[in-house]
Each structure stands twice: as C-alpha cells, then as structure tokens.
C-alpha cells in the first residue's frame, strides 16, 4: 500500500525525536540556577544571597559551566609527557618518527661510577604542527621516558608556537596517556584525575627497593 512505508518512517523519526539528545556540549554547557549553584559548591539559596549577579545570569539562562569531554585513557592527545630522568638521549623516538619531526641534540655528560657515561639532553623539540600522533615514538622509547599526553586543547595562532621544547615538556603536568603503556592500565592510573610526580611510577617495571639497589651496585661488586 502506498504511503505505508512513509508512515513507518515517520514513526521512526518521531521515536528518535523523543529520545535523549546525543549531542555533547563543548567547551561549555548552559545551566540554570540549580546547576550554577552546584558548580559553585553551594545550595541555591546561598547562591542567590551571596552572588546575586551570577544568580540573575543563571536565571536568565546565560550561566555556563565547563564540560570535560569523555575520553578514553589511551587517547593520543595533542601533547606529550616526558620524564627527563628516564631519558638517556638514545634518539630512538627521533629515528622511529615517520615524519622526522623530533629533534634531539645530546652532549656527553657526567661519568657516573654506578651508571657509566650518561648523555645530557641539550635540545628536545617536537614539532606538533606536523605531528600526526601515530604514537610510534612512544612505542619506540625503550625506557618509558616519552608518553603520549591526554590533552588536546593546544591550538595556537602562530605556527612556531606549536613546537614543544624541552623546557615546556619538563614543566608540564605529567598526565601520560596509557597508549602502549600497559603498566598504567594495570595500576589503574587515571590521567584525567591524577598526575605522576615520581618518574619511577612511569616505568613498566616495579621500582627496585633500596636493598635490591645496594645488592646490585655495592655487594656484587
């Protein structure tokens, strides 16, 4: 019968019209008075008394609260996390990069009785303006020094500012993604809530105890 298929189609669209929206608001979400009060951490009456202008805004529908985008812990973000104490300047990441955008300059550093000769990192630049975030550099790192980051809000007006330098990597909060780092998943590390402050926690092996270190480096020699 002509028209039956069409009416069935309209039934489907009506059903979809009534289901909750899947649109995710980003970066801000409009909230009413109750939502704004909740975001400020007080109940609506307190909020009305203490912040009258903000409450008026909220009642008028102008108040917004920032929204965190739902991300997977393995998300390959727009930045990198780098633990300088773990890096030996072996340049595996630079060799493994398909685009050759990691620049490493290292000079021979101190000679340590325990660890032998070490290299000091002079330059460690990642040009993320050309990076495609494939993660091969992270996969190549034998010492778990370089990790993918989880953030993605790193847009800039000038192309040169897209180069991540050594200093920026040192100072950035350490929120590594668990991409190619199964130890983070085993430890239940959540990059969106916590940071890694001790570089020993970033490795794929357990941190050796002081006795182990003494046995290895003092007693056995």
């Amino acid at each position, binding site marked *: 019968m002509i028209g039956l298929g069409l009416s069935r189609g309209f039934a489907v669209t009506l059903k979809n019209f009534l289901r909750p929206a899947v649109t995710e608001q980003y970066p801000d979400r409009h909230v009413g008075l109750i939502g704004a009060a909740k975001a400020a951490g007080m109940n609506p009456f307190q909020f009305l008394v203490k912040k009258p202008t903000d409450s008026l805004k909220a009642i008028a529908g102008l108040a917004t609260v920032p929204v965190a985008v739902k991300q997977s812990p393995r998300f390959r973000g727009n930045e990198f996390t780098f633990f300088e104490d773990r890096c030996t300047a072996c340049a595996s990441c630079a060799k493994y990069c398909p685009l050759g955008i990691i620049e490493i300059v290292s000079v021979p550093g101190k000679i340590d009785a325990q660890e032998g000769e070490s290299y000091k990192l002079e330059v460690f630049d990642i040009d993320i303006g050309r990076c495609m975030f494939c993660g*091969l550099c992270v996969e190549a790192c034998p010492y778990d020094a370089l990790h993918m980051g989880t953030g993605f809000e790193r847009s800039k007006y000038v192309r040169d500012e897209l180069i991540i330098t050594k200093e920026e990597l040192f100072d950035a909060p350490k929120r590594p993604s668990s991409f190619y780092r199964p130890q983070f998943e085993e430890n239940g590390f959540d990059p969106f809530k916590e940071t890694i402050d001790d570089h020993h926690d970033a490795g794929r092996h357990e941190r050796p105890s002081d006795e182990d270190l003494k046995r290895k480096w003092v007693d056995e020699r």
Partner: protein
Amino acid sequence: MAIKTQPVTVNLGPQHPSTHGVFRMRVMFDGEEIVDVEPVFGYLHRGSEKLAEERTYTQIVTLTDRMDYVSSMLNNQAYILAVEKLAGIEPSPRGVWLRMIASELQRIASHLVATGFLLQDLGALGTPLIYAMRERENILDLFEMLCGARITNSYLRPGGVFMDAPAEFWPALDRGLGDILNTVDELETYLSGNEIVFSRTKGTAVLPKELLINASITGPMLRASGVDWDLRHRAPYDYYDRVSFDRILHTASDNYARYWVRVQETRESVKIIRQCIEQIEPGDVRPSFDEVPRLIRPPVGDAYAAIEGSKGELGFYLVSDGSIAPYRMHVRASSLINLTLLRDMLIGGQFGDLFVTFGSVDLNMGEVDR
C-alpha cells in the same frame, strides 16, 4: 513541432558537497538527460605510494590510514597482510582475532557512512545521515578505547596489533553490537520500505553482470548484481575460514540493490564479530621483538595480499629489495576501479539520478587519488 534543446556542459566540483571529496565531473546535458561525462580526479593526490618508498615497513601503517579515511582499519589489515606475506611473519592468534574484530567494526562504520551519504544525495537532508553517523560514533568510541585514535588508527603492526584490548572494551563492544543491530533495523524500517527511496533508486543505473566482471568491479557493487564474489569466502585470509557468515546477494544491480547489500552486510559483520568474541584466545597480541624486530628487512621479492574491503577488493603489492623500506608499493584501490564504470552508469540517465548513482558507488576520494 518538436522542441529542440542545445547540449549544455556543466562543470561539477571539485568543491561540491555531493562529490564525496574533491571529484570533478564535466557533464554534458541534453535537457535533463546526461549525454556525456568526463571524470577528472587527482585533486587529493598526496603521493602515498611514493612516500612509502622511503619509510620503514612499520611507519607505512600510518600512511595507509590516510588512504581510505573512513575504513582505516581495513587498509591497515590489507597492508599488514602484504608485509606478513613478504617477510614470512607468523602472526599471533590473539592479534589476528583482534584485528578481525576491528576490521569488521570498521566495515560496519564504512557501510553506515555509505548509506547515510547515499540518502543525503537522494535529498533526505540530514535525518538518515545523522542517524548513521550517531551509530558510527559509537564504533569510533570503541576504536578510541582500543588504540587511542578515532579515524587514523594505526592499530595494526606486522604480526598482530600493538596492544591488547582494555578490560572495559569487551562489555562496551557487546553493548555496541546490540545498538548496531537496532540501528540497522530502524534504518530498514524507514528506508527499505520507503516509497520515495523505491521510486528514486529502483531501476536506475542498472549495470549488466558481464560488464561488472569485465571491468573487475568488486565489493557490494558486484554482489548487488548477483555474482557471489567475496574474498572472505573465496580466498579466506586471517581466520575468516573459522567463522561462518552469509554472503549477501541481490540480482537487480541497480542503486537500490547496492544500498540493500550494504545494509544487510552490516548484520553479517555483527555475526562475524560475535563469533570472534567466542573464539578469541588469550596470549600475546604480537610476536616478540626477537621474532619480528621493529626494523623489518624482508628478503628480496614481491608479495600481493588482498582483503575484502568495505568498497571491494583492497590489495597491496609490495616489492622488496632487501632493505628496510619497500622498493615499490602499489595499492589496488577499490574505489578507483569501481569508478571506472561511471560513464556506463550515468550516460542516458537523468540529471536527478546523477548524484544518487555517484553515491551508490561508495567511493572515497582519499583512496581514489592516494
């Protein structure tokens, strides 16, 4: 007295929303009828095959993502199969199961995009496309859980995949498969019985079976004409010989048949993924670096491996000269070869059917131009 009209040449594209990328057609119309079509492509040429000649075998995986950007996992799979054949790598069983799951999910995503955009070309502005995209978004979320990226996955490595699926992936996959089936049912309710879709797509751009075979057309376009040709069944790669599925065939070989085959194939993909979940075995997802080093040096020779991609036979031909990078890489891009019958499909048709026919080929300009 017959009214005489003069043929008019119209330039369509390259920047046109209905050309699925940057595709240009010079079409000659006589009134509403199409007299001549001259396809012009190459606007998205990035030289992937040449770039591959100076990259190592693992690094090329990232290039294959960008060829057919709505089915990156399938590109990865075809390329990795070629590398494994060339270097004689024995893949890890769990890695193979995982990449089968990933590529079947990608096939569903690709078919949903194809269906959504076909309906968009028909003039159903928005609704079917948004419904299809909403479901694809769930699949992309699953990919983000697996490998951290949504479109340019680079998930596969020679010998398997780079990382095992996280624990939260399996329940999410189970939920996702149910959602996909619901969406496909919904899609069929409002499209497969729709009179407007019938009148616009049935009987348009009919291609004879012999012509399709002679032009080496593969994929849903060929199966819509009734030729039972599916590489997953004819020449099973990976573990496709251990799963059972129905081959979807239609005999009409018109635009509706091509649409119908794609929609039904998503159900078969769900069936395959369910069997993969049942049969997946624990173990390593890739061979150790002692067996398959990061820098692969295959022996001198060549290898061709093909898979049943979302658009047809997707093959990678690799020639090795014994170094760390291939001497030559060639891609049998299914979109490009399916496009060769464009003139036969369009000439003699109506202006209104032009984009519908074009959309029913399900081509991707990233793959056509590479």
